[in-house]
């Protein structure tokens, strides 16, 4: 429709004495191209180019002068730490996303349940973890987990539980990084689900109440199906962010103890930047691509579906 109007308004101008350059500058596509040019520059030079460049980097040797093909990948497959990182990354991302989704859904439900006057206040309080920069809030957790002055252990001591070595023991360290990630991410799920809950028509619940449905049946047969799209988009989106997480693990454990909490991102940093083996680091970070690609494809499909429904 816009096309019609532009040719109409454009015609008289063309009839007048205008140079071809001016005409070109007045054409819609030229203006549009100029408007998107900065965006294209950012995307191509700082995102697309580095992404493909890391593919090239991954095939070089440590001093980046010799092509080694898949040599870096072979080397990684032979290292025990690598498989530890694969295991921990998957465990971390899957567990954290599941718990974030469950907690987010539960909290959203409780917020939705109370009179709407108080909802804003509660929602505001519950979103605070998402607002604080994760590197800084993780410092607070690091202090709460401190080996000698842990405030949690102080509380535990009062109920007679022996002090827990939160970041020193492999299992507890894994638990701690996941816990902090849940703490940071659950509010995001809560907000998304709350928005989705509000869009479920109230009549459906009234009808089910008359039919004698209990609260569980209402959730299972009405709420969840109505929110399916938002649930999957939020979970997939969070899967990407969690899988690629860096800040929390870096600040809380630095990958320790004994590399047991390293994720792809933190290990890539350790190998690529701190140990100076850039190709191997690039190689490690490339292992994030398959999961990201799958999640991104699914998100695009869901968002497309959503567009058709509306």
């Amino acid at each position, binding site marked *: 429709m816009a096309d019609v109007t532009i040719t109409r308004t454009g015609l008289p101008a063309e009839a007048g004495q205008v140079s071809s350059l001016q005409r070109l500058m007045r054409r819609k596509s030229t203006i549009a191209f100029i408007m998107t040019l*900065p965006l294209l520059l950012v995307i191509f030079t700082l995102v697309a180019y580095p992404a493909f460049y890391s593919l090239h980097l991954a095939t070089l040797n440590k001093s980046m002068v010799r092509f080694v093909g898949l040599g870096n990948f072979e080397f990684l497959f032979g290292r025990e730490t690598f498989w530890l990182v694969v295991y921990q990354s998957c465990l971390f991302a899957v567990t954290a996303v599941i718990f974030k989704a469950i907690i987010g859904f539960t909290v959203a439900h409780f917020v939705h349940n109370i009179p709407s006057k108080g909802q804003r206040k509660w929602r505001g309080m519950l979103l605070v973890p998402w607002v604080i920069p994760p590197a800084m*809030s993780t410092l607070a957790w690091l202090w709460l987990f401190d080996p000698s*002055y842990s405030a949690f252990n102080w509380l535990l001591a009062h109920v007679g539980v022996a002090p827990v070595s939160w970041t020193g023991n492999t299992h507890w360290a894994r638990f701690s990084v996941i816990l902090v990630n849940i703490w940071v991410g659950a*509010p995001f799920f809560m907000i998304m689900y709350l928005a989705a809950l509000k869009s479920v028509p109230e009549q459906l619940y009234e009808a089910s109440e008359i039919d004698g449905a209990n609260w569980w049946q209402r959730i299972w047969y009405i709420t969840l199906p109505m929110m399916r799209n938002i649930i999957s988009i939020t979970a997939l989106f969070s899967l990407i962010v969690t899988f690629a997480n860096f800040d929390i693990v*870096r600040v809380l454990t630095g990958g320790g103890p004994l590399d047991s909490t390293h994720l792809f991102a933190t290990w890539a940093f350790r190998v690529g930047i701190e140990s100076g083996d850039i190709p191997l680091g690039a190689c490690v970070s490339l292992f994030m691509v398959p999961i990201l690609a799958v999640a991104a494809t699914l998100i695009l499909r869901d968002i497309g579906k959503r567009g058709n429904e509306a």
Partner: protein
Amino acid sequence: MADTALATGAPTRALKYGSIAKDRRWALRLSYFFLTLFAIFFLMPPIYMFITSLKTSAEISAETNPWWVFNPTLANYIELLTQDTYLIFFRNSAMVSVIVVTISMLISVFAAFALARMRFWGSTLLATGVFLTYLIPETLLFIPLFKMMAMVRDATGIELMNNWWTMIILYPTLTVPFCTWIMIGYFASIPKELDEAALIDGATWIQTLTKIFIPVALPGIIAATIFAFTVSWAQFLYPLAFTTSTDQLVLPVGIITTLIKGDVFNWGQIMTGALLGAAPPLIIYAFLMDYYIAGLTAGATKG
């Protein structure tokens, strides 16, 4: 507070649902109970930060109740705010964030307008591309970027490494795609008749953008601005990888690398520094919560 809300909330519920009022009341009490539990979980770390920031080093290492301040003092705040290094971190962070927000909003508003309204060859593909770019995490890009900086230095002699302004070049990769994406959503929701009327009246595309789209989509612009600010203020990986000298660091990295000296953790100051560092996004959030939440949900619900 919760009790008063409960008391006022109960009668309306009773009126509305008649016989099942009792069930409702219990559901409400349960909701408040669990919400309180979750609120404690969610707010505990920042509150503990605040508690620790008011303590002296002696009290922190004492065997007293860590959840209470016995001798509150502002010494940590005073010491930190009179220290040059912390103020430099704060200045660097503020400069980077403000400039990055300005750049990203300029880029994304123009691009989103072109993508949402001026259909041209490849515009839908590009819109999808923008969204995909948003899904690429910075953890995938920092290593090739590290190498690219060395390449730029060899080619042009410009040293990008260890300069705070390098962040101004890098951060837009994190903010621009999402800002553009949500602005496309906001612009697309503006009725076509509005800009058609303007075009018929002889407005140029730029006039349509500045006189109609920007004023109408102002809530979206505020939401995108808040997002860009929060992201650039919180970014940790890029400054950690690309800056090292004390005078070039931004807040998150600065606190972690300078206040932690070897194995000695000065927790009072670390918590004060982290709390002050978290303050700008928190203050913005406190005043513009609705815009903040609109921006959060827009990513998946619009476009």
